[in-house]
């Protein structure tokens, strides 16, 4: 897991493990809730990375039986994301103006492609797979790196202060049970750290908007539920960090 996401997750566990930190925890959860309300998201990534499945999960649908390689940009009806957080709290995000688009480079580079999808987004989710990570596709000249290069050129055209979060999907193909989630993160620490470093280097001077990478599985509901909670907190913490740095600057 990226260092930021891992730190957030550990901090969260640390907070939970201490009695008397209820107030602080409630404040943290409330902060996440308030921040996410009404945010616009965009989902991009290579073909077959799991963008469609992510949209299905967000809409609390099962992954569709009829699954197609998306051949064109299609608008998705506005929907609410209702996620149960710990301590009987739920997060409710309204997703409006979502466009589902293909992952082939043709769609990335078309003016009506990824740029249109990301233009008004507050948070851009870039979905890749665990195989892309272990195969080091973030190295120069390879697909993930090309997409990051594209992202850098797109940044000036995106919403000011946009946040980027990477979702590393299909980890269910690497682990037997959802309880192995953290062990896998430890095992892949080296690759995750290299990815983190690459993203920060490529996205410079916009690297402050990068909120980390999270291991996830759209297919396995248990892993998904656990991971998406981490994602929401990591993005919120990333935003908080950026805001703090801006104030300090």
């Amino acid at each position, binding site marked *: 897991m990226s260092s930021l996401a891992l730190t957030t997750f550990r901090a969260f566990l640390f907070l939970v493990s201490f009695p008397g930190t209820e107030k602080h925890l409630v404040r943290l959860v409330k902060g996440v809730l308030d921040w996410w309300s009404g945010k616009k998201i965009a989902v991009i990534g*290579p*073909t*077959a990375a799991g963008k469609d499945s992510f949209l299905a999960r967000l809409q609390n649908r099962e992954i*569709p039986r*009829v*699954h*197609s*390689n*998306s*051949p*064109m*940009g*299609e*608008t*998705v009806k506005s929907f609410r994301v209702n996620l149960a957080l710990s301590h009987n709290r739920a997060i409710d995000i309204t997703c409006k103006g979502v*466009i*589902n688009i*293909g992952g*082939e*480079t*043709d*769609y*990335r*580079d*078309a*003016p*009506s*492609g990824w740029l*249109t999808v990301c233009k008004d987004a507050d948070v851009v989710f870039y979905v890749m797979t665990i195989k892309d990570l272990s195969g080091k596709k973030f190295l120069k000249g390879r*697909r993930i790196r090309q997409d990051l290069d594209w992202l850098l050129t797109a940044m000036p055209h995106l919403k000011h202060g946009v946040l980027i979060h990477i979702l590393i999907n299909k980890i269910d193909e690497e682990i037997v049970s959802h309880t192995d989630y953290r062990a896998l993160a430890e095992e892949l620490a080296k690759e995750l750290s290299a990815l983190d470093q690459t993203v920060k280097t490529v996205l410079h001077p916009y690297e402050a908007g990068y909120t980390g990478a999270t291991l996830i599985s759209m297919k396995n509901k248990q892993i998904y539920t656990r991971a998406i909670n981490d994602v929401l907190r990591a993005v919120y913490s990333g935003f908080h960090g950026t805001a703090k740095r801006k104030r300090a600057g």
Partner: protein
Amino acid sequence: MTGMQAYWILPNRDQKDDILASDGETTVPLRQILDPKLRPEGFSHGVPTELLEKCAPKAFAEILFAQRFPHWNGDKQLFSVSTPAGLDSSGRVVHLGLLFILEPRERPRFELPYASLSEEDQTYASALIHRMTSSGRGDSWAQSVRDLSELRSDNRPATNVALDRSVVRFRSLYVVGPGGLTKKSPNWRKPRTTAIISLILFAVVGAWLSVRACEPSSRQAARTGEAAWRFN
């Protein structure tokens, strides 16, 4: 004048980063034929997901989705037809398409060779060509594509079948529903209905005004010197 150019848009069975195309002999990335920067908004390299969702999986083989973009890249027009063509390695539906770059009034001719395609792709290519060249009655999808190609050209992009989720508003000729593909009512019906309603309303209002004009007024006559005026 260069005349019609035609290409197969090949199914992305191996989940490659680029969509591939073939002129019947050589296979190249589609971007070499259709620069992504020049690609019209709403262009699809296959059958939109919403059409697949509206049709039962056993009817997938029947679906033909066509698009027409007049006045593309100067005075050319783009015409494409696609059909589901099996599944990729993750079990997702992939698509085979035919792309035509045409002169302004040119109609697509379905005669592109497919012998150089993979065996699996050849099956779908042959079926597509056969459906588009035979005048088989009862193939409403093929008829809708023919109707689109014969459509009087205007500036708007058009599709053979209406889409609800497209980012672009297309003019369309047919709708797909639980009963299959049906032709939309001709557009002239709407203005005619509006005209009839307006005429009826006009007649009713006219009749009412005439009746009112013939009624004796309930107001008192106003005397102003020598002349007496009665106001209706």
